[in-house]
């Protein structure tokens, strides 16, 4: 067999990478590359050409230098738990896994900081800090598996970010390697840094600006105690009002979550948490702090929920009961996975006050698309996770789900929200970016990207659509608009491709959020 020019190029690149990184960590064979073909949104997949796993920052820099010399794009990858196909390989690119940079370098209990490598798991930081009575704030639901480097790339949130903030509020300093392999440092160990706030700019940049090689995070004192108040309501709008009332009363809960009827019933069947299955909306409000504070606020919150029409309320009396009440919420995704062959998790943010209106509109759209949807909502900070239920084995079902999802995100923008609260844009939401940004704004974002990476070789094609793509999306949206009365057949081209993949793929289960299925790197 005669190798093509591309194959020869790959073989040569692979040979040179093996001079930099131990040969077994330059992955060339298809079987071993397979786990890197997608992240936790496996409807998008592409087999990478080469995967390289450096064991040190020096090796990583050498890899970056080589790729730069050869003009090869690089896609950095953490634990592979991302939900927007941000780590999707592209044919000409090298996938750079940070899985082996997984050491906690230092915990400074007095300064309350941890210095860690990017491959360290989110939860491992809190586990290591626990002996000092400290923890790391952001707790995405994938925290068992997801890596801190990925958290920085996505600006991850979690259940507790209303009180403890997002990743951007909890990282102090990062060391990065730029596209040429040069090291640079952003942030500082102090509360701010000299010059521009590059720490903020890098956080949430989805691997487009540099490769993070070391992170210093802020640690917080573990609260003395926590209790959760559960309240069931007959209507979503009453529950929404109750959320607003808690906030307006001057209480900042550690977490404030809402589930709709579908989610309640699925979660209860799965976790037997004691949720009232006839309720239309359920609130879980967690208060943490000193024992005195928790007792005072829980009493007020429970009273407020009753006064505002809760059908029933319940406050956890001990740690076991608190964990049980959370268990239902935390297992909502897998629980929904049990009542449907597949589901597609969306991630829009809306002003809290619009929740009833948005859920009503989502129900209306669900009827239009003939698909069921369960809603899980970080109500405290307005982050909505509609779970669209579908069956990938039914031809066309996923295509409908994807289009429905896109419409939900556009709805979020229309009511004053945004297309992604914590999952990122990646590949998945490129099509909704023009709904949130004008062409000039997108062009400005591209200009920022060029300041770091003039040739566009870091995670190319992600996060910011080209203006040409935007034109196509708008044209297709108009086509869809005019055809939507007829049927759901006028789908954008990429959706059609995805539909085919969904019908033919053997492993099309978008229902992997927060499950160990995302920890593909560790298998290598």
């Amino acid at each position, binding site marked *: 067999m005669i190798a093509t020019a591309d194959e020869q190029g790959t073989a040569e690149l692979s040979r040179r990478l093996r001079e930099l990184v131990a040969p077994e960590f330059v992955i060339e064979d298809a079987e071993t590359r397979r786990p890197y073909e997608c992240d936790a949104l496996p409807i998008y997949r592409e087999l990478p050409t080469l995967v390289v796993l450096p064991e040190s920052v020096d090796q990583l820099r050498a890899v970056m230098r080589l790729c730069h010399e050869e003009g090869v794009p690089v896609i950095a990858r953490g634990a592979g738990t991302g939900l927007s196909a941000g780590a999707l390989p592209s044919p000409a690119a090298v996938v750079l896994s940070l899985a082996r940079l997984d050491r906690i370098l230092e915990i400074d209990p007095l300064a309350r900081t941890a210095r860690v490598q990017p491959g360290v798991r989110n939860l491992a930081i809190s586990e290591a800090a626990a002996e000092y009575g400290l923890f790391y704030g952001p707790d995405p639901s994938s925290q068992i598996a997801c890596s801190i480097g990925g958290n920085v790339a996505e600006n991850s949130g979690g259940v507790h970010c209303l009180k403890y903030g997002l990743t951007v509020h909890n990282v102090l300093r990062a060391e990065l390697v730029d596209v040429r392999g040069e090291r640079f440092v952003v942030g500082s160990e102090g509360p701010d840094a000299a010059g521009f706030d590059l720490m903020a700019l890098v956080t949430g940049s989805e691997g487009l600006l540099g490769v993070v090689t070391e992170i210093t995070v802020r640690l917080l004192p573990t609260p003395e105690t926590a209790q959760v108040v559960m309240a069931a309501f007959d209507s979503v709008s009453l529950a929404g009002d109750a959320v607003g009332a808690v906030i307006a009363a001057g209480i900042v809960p550690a977490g404030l979550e809402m589930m709709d009827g579908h989610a309640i019933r699925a979660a209860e069947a799965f976790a037997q948490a004691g949720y009232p299955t006839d309720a239309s909306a359920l609130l879980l409000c967690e208060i943490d702090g000193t024992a005195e504070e928790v007792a005072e606020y829980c009493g007020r919150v429970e009273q407020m929920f009753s006064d505002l029409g809760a059908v029933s309320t319940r406050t956890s009396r001990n740690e076991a009961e608190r964990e049980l009440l959370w268990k239902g919420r935390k297992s909502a995704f897998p629980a929904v996975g049990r009542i449907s062959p597949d589901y597609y998790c969306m991630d829009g943010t809306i*002003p809290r006050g619009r929740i009833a209106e948005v859920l009503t509109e989502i129900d209306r759209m669900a009827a239009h698309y003939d698909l069921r949807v369960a809603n899980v909502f970080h109500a405290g900070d307005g982050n909505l996770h509609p779970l669209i239920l579908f069956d990938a084995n039914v031809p066309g079902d996923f295509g409908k789900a994807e289009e429905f999802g896109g419409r939900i995100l556009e709805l979020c923008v229309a009511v004053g929200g945004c297309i992604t609260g914590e999952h990122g844009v990646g590949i998945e939401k490129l099509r909704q970016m023009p709904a949130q940004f004008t062409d000039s704004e997108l062009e400005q974002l591209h200009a920022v990207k060029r300041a770091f990476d003039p040739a566009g070789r870091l995670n190319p094609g992600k996060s910011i659509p080209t203006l040409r793509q935007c034109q196509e999306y708008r044209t297709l949206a108009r086509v869809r608009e005019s055809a939507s009365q007829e049927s759901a057949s006028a789908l954008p081209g990429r959706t059609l491709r995805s539909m085919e993949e969904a019908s033919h793929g053997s492993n099309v289960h978008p229902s992997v959020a927060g499950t160990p299925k995302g920890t593909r790197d560790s298998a290598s």
Partner: protein
Amino acid sequence: MSDIANRIVERIEAARRDGEPLSIVAGASKRFVGRASRGNPLDVAAHQGIVSYEPGELVLTVRAGTRLAEIEAALAEHGQALQFEPPQFDGAATIGGTLACNASGPARPWSGSVRDAVLGVELVTGRAQRLRFGGQVMKNVAGFDVSRLQAGALGAFGVITEISLKVLPRPRHTVTLVRRLDAADAIVHMNGLAGTAKPLSGACWHDGQLYVRFSGAESAVDAAANQWGGERLDAAESFWQDLAEQRLPYFRAGVPLWRFSVRSSSPLPEIDGDWLIDWGGAQRWLHGDLDKGELERAAESAGGHVSLYRGGDREGEVHHALPEALKSLHLRLKDAFDPDRILNPGRLYGWM
């Protein structure tokens, strides 16, 4: 309420055409920050007014020329506040200037800075384009975080015209305690206290006195205060206000005034002088005719940076020197927003 955004766009368009440098000004309360302004004044004070305020959402959207005093008054009606306690400088400070200077007060280590509170901005860039980034919701990860990039940039990217901020409930109860300690012990003490789950909201040391403030639910504050000991400070509110406003006698004692932003637990550098330590150890002030290079080395060994905050030579560099790699990155970023370098040229660094 008045909206002069179109005038700002036109002014920048004209300046771009003529290569005319502009110096952005609103309340003129922080003229002393950064290097001496070059350029003709671009007064944006008239771009002011609260655009929307939803207490139940904890979100405020406001034109950048709005004075902090007006904002705080509107928030107070609903028992809310700007949790970063920005200095109002005799009522002149505006929210736009506060963000451009990343100015925050004593609660900053616990409640976050103005940078942390920002949700979105509208900006007129050096290309005279009116652009929006971020939004009015708590979580938004679409696109790069251009909003927070404005914090401390001293207007290098554009004129901030509108800002959306997260606001928070005003604490229900506050107690301040004071005790005598030397600086070294105070630093250890502040950091130790910050590592316990107590409702801390301020920790400051000066002249042998450690001031500690607790804020929050009455029960929790009183319990923490009783446990910690120390004397209750009368007129505590004015102490913290005077600290935030930089009008304690310390801040009048002389210039040049240096600001250190360092690892909160780092020992005090061996530089003699009258130190004031705030932010639980992370922000430290020192005045005197001192060698910038020496202070920079001290700040670096404490994991942070130093700036010549007020007074001294404003024609020279006043901010911590950047390594070459960051310097060129700063210039490329500046050029991405303001390719003709007409906005606040040289204010942050002489080379920009």
